[in-house]
């Protein structure tokens, strides 16, 4: 599994298509049979790590570089997304961070 993280609108799916050869029709924002999952941060509930490791590519927005939300639920959610990405990154064969449409390989 290859993990791609980056901010809102950073160009993560375009990067996956252009640099990693992923096909647009293989991308889905839901946990289905398609090999590329994007918008992981929006899935409710967050999937198990084991499910995500079966994917070829997992794409997630960075959500943790802002003020910690006052709302307990949102706060827990932000933390959970960050922790999940950290666990995925530890197991991923490669990790990319995308900013301004450019990718940097972190692992």
């Amino acid at each position, binding site marked *: 599994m290859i993990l791609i993280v980056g901010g809102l*609108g950073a160009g993560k799916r*375009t990067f996956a298509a252009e640099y990693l050869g992923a096909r647009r029709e293989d991308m889905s924002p839901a946990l289905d049979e398609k090999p590329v999952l994007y918008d992981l941060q929006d899935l409710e509930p967050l999937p198990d790590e084991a499910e995500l490791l079966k994917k070829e590519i997992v794409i997630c927005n960075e959500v943790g570089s802002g003020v910690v939300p006052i709302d307990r639920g949102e706060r827990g959610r932000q933390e959970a997304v960050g922790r999940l990405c950290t666990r995925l990154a530890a197991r991923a064969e490669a990790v990319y961070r995308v900013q301004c449409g450019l990718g940097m390989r972190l692992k």
Partner: protein
Amino acid sequence: MRALVFGGAGSGKSAFAEELSRRLADGGRLIYLATMSAGEPESRARIARHRAQRAGKGFETVERPCDLAGLDVPAGCTVLLEDLGNLAANELFLQGKASEKALQDMLAGIARLEAQARHLVVVGNAVFSDGGRYDGGTMGYLRTLARLQNALAGRFEQVTEVVCGLPVYWKGEGL
């Protein structure tokens, strides 16, 4: 050379971009293209501070909150455009343009600067990783700014993130 410099608030991206511009200009004419709209007292104070910072560094300041496409700069000069976040806000909210129109106008304006200037340094913003869910206007602003920065990063020769005053090169290190 065309360079995009971006970073968070207080990251030192302005100082880095100024230094890069001066190095590229190499004694030639330097234009500081300011996009901040001088409407409010806070903006005016900030502009005055930035002007003072640049005083003695050889920059001629030109204020241009929007409509870059209608601007002429001296041929062969070095332009420092600061910053895209203000420019996008002005095009969308002061001018009241739709996202697509604002984006195309900004890209055309910057292309015109690229054609006239010898070197162009553009300061962008890192405002996309806070996980915030905003109202439609703000989300539209973020998406427009992201598309603008992605397009420039794709065609510019150098792209640098500034963190605590230190450069992280995403493209074109050593140029």
